[in-house]
């Protein structure tokens, strides 16, 4: 199957692959998918084939990745992608209203493009600008504090051929031009990098500090970095001191909440103790196991997720966590991994990364031989198992 990609795109593809270690070219897949969008406006079956060819993967492997990420579009898009945040904060501040207004005004729904090919509309999840909510982006550059009428103004200007200036971020380019940047290339437009100073919410805390002359005292940029020998000596002294005053550390650990208003700070001991038993509210079918402590379940789970030197993980084999600050012992995992590798022939899509290139080439040749015979249907990227 032939692809139509230009020499420029092929040259860029080589540049992208060269960014990653020679035997880890698959790392280039995400930027390459952005790159094919830069030429076609979406990830087409041809785009999938192109990525597969240049990386020595098969199309199923590329399609599986392309369908996982929301920024890879699977049908042609307009010149401008208008994304309205409708996650909770923007939503309650009016984002939902903005989105609903645009749906009606443009006559398209989520992930749909206007008939003139100008605008693709979508509702987006949190765009990380909650202090400016409700926000909307055009090709991912921000329009802050929008309301239905400003949003309609922006899309009308876009449809009329104008390029409204984002509140923060650079002057607008087309979605295809943006995809080149997403593939990791510099924004070559004169002045684009300098566009977009910080907005007031970003600077608010700083301005307060400046107005009232607040700074952190005692900053000396020439403070020496202690060498290990000095640090060891200091640690030994500290230890000696601690042993001399035995009860002190116990007292410290019994008062974990510090630095705030000590009187009103809740302590772990009484958190929840004054409230009715939470179990009463639950008709849960989960077995009624007594909690090992009175922490909130979320806190306890979070601690288990991030084991540190002091967290034991009792029920997972090979998960002995060291009790001092040395590295976790990798031997158990390594021998288990070696046994697993010995027992299982690697599949084409196996991990860790760095697929066996020979097998893929064989697959590709076979696939080519098969499809060339009648020139029939290459796998459609959109049918390779969407997850979302």
């Amino acid at each position, binding site marked *: 199957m032939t692809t139509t990609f230009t020499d420029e795109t092929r040259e860029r593809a080589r540049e992208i692959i060269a960014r*990653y*270690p020679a035997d880890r070219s*698959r790392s280039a897949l995400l930027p390459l998918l952005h790159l094919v969008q830069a030429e076609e406006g979406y990830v087409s079956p041809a785009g999938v084939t192109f990525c597969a060819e240049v990386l020595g993967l098969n199309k199923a492997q590329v399609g599986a990745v392309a369908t996982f*990420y929301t*920024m*890879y579009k699977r049908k042609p898009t307009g010149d401008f992608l208008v994304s309205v945040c*409708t*996650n909770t904060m923007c939503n*309650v501040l009016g984002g939902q209203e903005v989105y609903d207004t645009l749906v009606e005004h443009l006559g398209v729904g989520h992930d749909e493009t206007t008939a003139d090919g100008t605008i693709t509309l979508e509702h987006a*999840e*949190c765009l990380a600008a*909650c*202090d400016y*909510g409700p926000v909307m982006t055009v090709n*991912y*550059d921000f329009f802050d504090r929008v309301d239905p009428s400003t949003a309609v103004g922006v899309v009308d200007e876009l449809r009329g051929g104008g390029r409204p200036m984002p509140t*923060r*971020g650079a002057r607008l380019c087309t979605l295809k031009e943006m995809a080149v*940047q*997403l593939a990791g290339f*510099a*924004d070559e437009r004169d002045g*684009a990098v300098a566009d*977009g100073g*910080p907005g007031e*919410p*970003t600077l*608010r805390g*700083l301005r*307060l500090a400046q107005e*009232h002359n607040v*700074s*952190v005292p*005692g*900053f000396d940029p020439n*403070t020496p970095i202690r*060498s290990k020998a000095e640090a060891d000596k200091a640690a030994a002294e500290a230890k000696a001191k601690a042993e001399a005053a035995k009860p002190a550390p116990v007292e410290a650990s019994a008062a974990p909440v*510090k*630095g705030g*208003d000590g009187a009103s700070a809740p*302590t*772990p001991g009484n958190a*929840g103790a004054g409230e009715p038993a*939470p179990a009463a509210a*639950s*008709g*849960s079918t989960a077995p009624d196991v007594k909690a090992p402590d009175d922490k*909130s*379940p*979320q806190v*306890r789970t*979070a601690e288990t*997720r991030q084991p*540190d030197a002091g967290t034991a993980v009792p029920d997972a084999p*090979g998960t002995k966590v060291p009790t001092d600050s040395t*590295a976790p012992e*990798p031997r158990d995992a390594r021998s288990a991994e070696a046994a697993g590798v010995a027992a299982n022939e690697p599949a084409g899509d196996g991990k*860790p*990364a760095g697929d066996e290139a020979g097998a893929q080439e064989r697959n590709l040749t076979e696939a080519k031989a098969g499809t060339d015979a009648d020139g029939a249907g290459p796998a459609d990227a959109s049918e390779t198992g969407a997850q*979302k």
Partner: protein
Amino acid sequence: MTTPRPETLAKLTPVLTKRWLSPDAWRIGTYEQLDGYAALRKALKAHPDDLIQLIKDSGLRGRGGAGFPTGLKWGFIPQGDGKPHYLVVNADEGEPGTCKDLPLMTHDPHALVEGVIIASYAIRASRAYIYIRGEAVHAARRLRNAVQEAYDKGYLGRNILRSGYDLELVVHSGAGAYICGEETALLDSLEGFRGQPRLRPPFPATHGLYASPTVVNNVGTIASVPPIVLGGADWWKTMGTEKSSGPMIYSLSGRINNPGQYECSMGVTLRELLELAGGMQPGHNLRFWTPGGSSTPLLAAEHLDVPLDFEGVAAAGSILGTTATQIFSDQDCPVYATYRWLEFYHHESCGKCTPCREGNYWMVRVYRRILSGQGTHEDLDTLLDTCDNILGRSFCGLGDGATSSVTSSLKYFKQDYLDYIEGRTAPKLSEKTLVGAH
């Protein structure tokens, strides 16, 4: 607007944010005039082990949500093992409510680049990656520009500042998947796979990127490194609390007069933050808030004086998370807010594990039923039961996070649920949105 009291103003600690007021700080020339790359020069003269010790001494903890001690993490990297080491910066900011890393990378990108070089030197990595959220295009523009400037000036590449140390740094844009903020999913995504979390152990410290020892740190964590190298561990510990040292960028949003970024000493309280932010908007009274993004259990008005550090928030039954403080008032409905967050987790669940994929799918439908006035008392038990089956049983923290707002809103605001179920609150969703709820 009244001026905050001096003792409240004293909680402000502009360290990571201090250069944002200089409009050109993103250019290397301006950055160099503002202490820029001084920490790197200093660090390259020190032994890498001494830098790791310095970070341990400072008590710096991860700024991405979990609060793992950074120096300890760096120390886990086995040295002299003959394998390549990697530093990966998690710049996939996407936790609802969180908006601290994007301004940092946009207005002070060199602070991150300098931190990357020092951290890589400390763990003996010769390649580093910044995995930045795809949608963060302007931050990525500035960051790529900064990386190029750093190469041109000899801060990156071969033989950095004639120290003999080499480092390659690549800015890698994601493609719109919240799950890639989970460190092992991020590594898979960076390797060119679907961003799905890996089973741990082995941990990234030994089997991370390309199965090699890898440190994954948040933007704020790495940007904290240069000031610690310059000012020292003791200076750093003058801020914050005993176990949560240093400054933290608190991102305030919602029903307040002046939403925005407030960098404060860790352990500041919401009451103090509200004072800095000019109080609640007229006609709004604080009802519920998240201490650190939507994955942390909601807190209520009674928690105004909880110290916002890792221990203080945990003692109050929630998690400090990313210090994304979203503030809601008595005019906002906790049931609807939770529903909207669940739509998010349902959309972003990667599909790898059943509890998260199915649990969120069904909880969204239960919420739609409740909000359209067709809920039953049994639905509340169903929600709690589903949460029981997701929390701690899903593959990664995304599933855990989804349960936070459900269980906490049921704990504090059960009456709001009952009002929908028993018909005292008008339905918020129309029946046409009810698909497959029964």
